[in-house]
């Protein structure tokens, strides 16, 4: 089953008294355990599409099914619980909680999911080890470099073993060397944990690593290239 299915999804924003179309007639299926990139120029609708897939925004029309669940039918609390269980987020600005240590940031989604303490600890330590930050577990985000913060964010996104990880321009605030390392890390984690990753990016490094590339322009999907197609 495909982890994400979008049927005839449309979304517009209202700026002052003007309707601005953000997405129109989006039909898309994200294949499981793939590294999918939403690509397009600024303002093309990548982030809006990612927000809809991540259930943090609602479309004006259409249908969205994530992990088999028609998410538009869920009420706010149920949707929050669904996100906590099924979706991991990686943000462009890392968005770690500054008052929590690296360990606590990774632990937080597990607390929301009410994971038992012993299991929680094992999971956090294993993820911090996997992203190469086992020795920085007690450091707060302010004591970490940009690359290290994004590694913590990756570990946090994977903490609850989600069906889907969404990353909005995850390398945009990193230098090319660090960005490349982060992409490699995400690729490695995606393969090892068999998780579906969806990015929004126009970074060539990210595009080069993608299994599938969904091109968007002016709120419409212009092309879907899947690795099988490329090969």
């Amino acid at each position, binding site marked *: 089953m495909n982890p994400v299915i979008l049927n005839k999804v449309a979304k517009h924003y209202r700026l002052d008294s003007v309707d601005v179309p953000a997405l129109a007639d989006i039909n898309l299926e994200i294949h499981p355990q793939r590294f999918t990139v939403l690509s397009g120029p600024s303002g093309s609708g990548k982030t809006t599409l990612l*927000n809809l897939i*991540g259930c*943090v*925004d609602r479309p004006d029309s259409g249908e969205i099914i994530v992990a088999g669940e028609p998410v538009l039918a869920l009420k*706010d*609390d149920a949707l*929050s*619980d669904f*996100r*906590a*269980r099924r979706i*991991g*987020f990686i*943000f462009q*600005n890392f*968005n770690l*909680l*500054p*008052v*929590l240590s690296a360990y*606590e940031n990774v*632990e*937080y*989604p597990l*607390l*929301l*999911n009410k994971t038992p303490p012993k299991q929680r600890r094992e999971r956090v330590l294993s993820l911090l080890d996997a992203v190469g930050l086992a020795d920085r577990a007690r450091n707060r985000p302010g004591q970490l470099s940009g690359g290290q913060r994004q590694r913590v964010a990756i570990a*946090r996104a994977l903490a609850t073993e989600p069906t889907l990880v969404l990353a909005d321009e995850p390398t945009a605030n990193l230098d090319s060397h660090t960005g490349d390392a982060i992409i490699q890390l995400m690729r490695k984690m995606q393969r090892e944990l068999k998780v579906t990753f969806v990015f929004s990016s126009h970074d060539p490094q990210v595009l080069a690593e993608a299994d599938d590339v969904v091109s968007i322009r002016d709120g419409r999907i212009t092309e879907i290239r899947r690795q099988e197609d490329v090969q």
Partner: protein
Amino acid sequence: MNTFKLALRNLLRNHRRSLTTLLAMTIGAVSILLFGGYARNINYGLQTGYVQHSGHLQIQHKDYFLYGSGNPAAYGIRNYQHVIEVVKNDPVLAPMLTVVTPVLSLGGIGGNFAAGVSRTVVGSGVLVDDQNRMRLWNDYDFPLHPKKLALTGTAPDSAVIGTGVARVLQLCGPLKVKNCPQAQVAVASGADAPSDIAALSDQERVQDAAPTDTSPRIELLAANAHGAPNVASLKVVKAESQGVKEFDDLYVGLHLPQAQRLVYGAEQPQATAIAIQLKHTSQIPAATARLDALLGTTLKSEPLEVHDYATLNPSYGQITGMFSAIFGFIAILIGAIVLFTVGNTMSMAVVERTVEIGTLRAIGLRRGGIRRLFVTEGLLLGAIGAVLGVLVSLALAYLVNHGGLTWTPPGNSDPVPLTVRVWGEVPMIIGTAIGLMVVAVISAWWPARRAAKLEIVEALRHV
């Protein structure tokens, strides 16, 4: 990482703002507690004064309180000694009692006939030893050094008068009363005392006065039980200020047997009140209930009733009521300040942490979780502010109480130590602390609600 811990860390994140808010709350709590402690002290001080002078309760003839104060003959308690015995020996009341003593109040005319002056007075006949024991009552541990009654150890015909009485009767000189200006205008002398009154006075004087005694004397004229005039010649041993001018201008204190002889002559002596002092003020309801039961059964031969000190001294309720009103006014003002201070702090926190709110919501925290987080921060501010406020109040109260400051309360003639009663006032401390926390939670509620209602996408986009 539970909500409480996260809220605490969020507060510590911006120490300067949190400290400013805590300072406002602490000053608020200190203001409330210090004024509350002062008002409490006034309350206890007044209560102590009333209880030391007239007891917690008084048994009086029915309607004496309303109609009988000038008429001891009609409203006296005939079998007062029997009543006292019954009260003292009652198994329920006995453990609560410290003193049970009769008092006779009478109205009359005090005269210094030698100087040709007189004035209306109110005499109070007491048993000196009982009154001295009553003055030892100090249930609230005031730093008091009770003075014995000036009548202590004096002859049966002795009297103590208010300085106002001494002034009018031109006795300031012989009694060495300070600050006692003499009238500049000559007082017009009235007609001489009627011959029969003058004869009575002379008779008393001849009977009682020791030939070598040089103490000034006054004549106290009162109506006896049959309405006829009677005179007692009293040796004035001292003039004492009574605090309130109206009372000071009227007061004549004398030994109970002397007062009884003046009013009742050779007939059965009576008392106008039986003052009952209890070990603790909190025993008043139980003691009153028991006394009412006794008055309705064992002591029902006479129409008697019981009044407590608050009823007997209406100014007590007025003064404590006034302080309660001021306290309430201050508490409301402080509450409003805290409300806006915490509300402002939390509103700023919501704006500054908008992206964090979006992040928390995105990774699965419910709206209720966001609301809980900010309300917990408000609660913590309230709790820490309250604890600091209580500690600072206790420290300041200690300094005030040991600073040697004094003041003269209304109705007192002598200055008393200025004390602020915070330590041990558990209900006031807990009430203030809970009040502050409730106000802090209420003021955090609105920003918390606004934070919870933020749209995730908008919050994540916030710059």
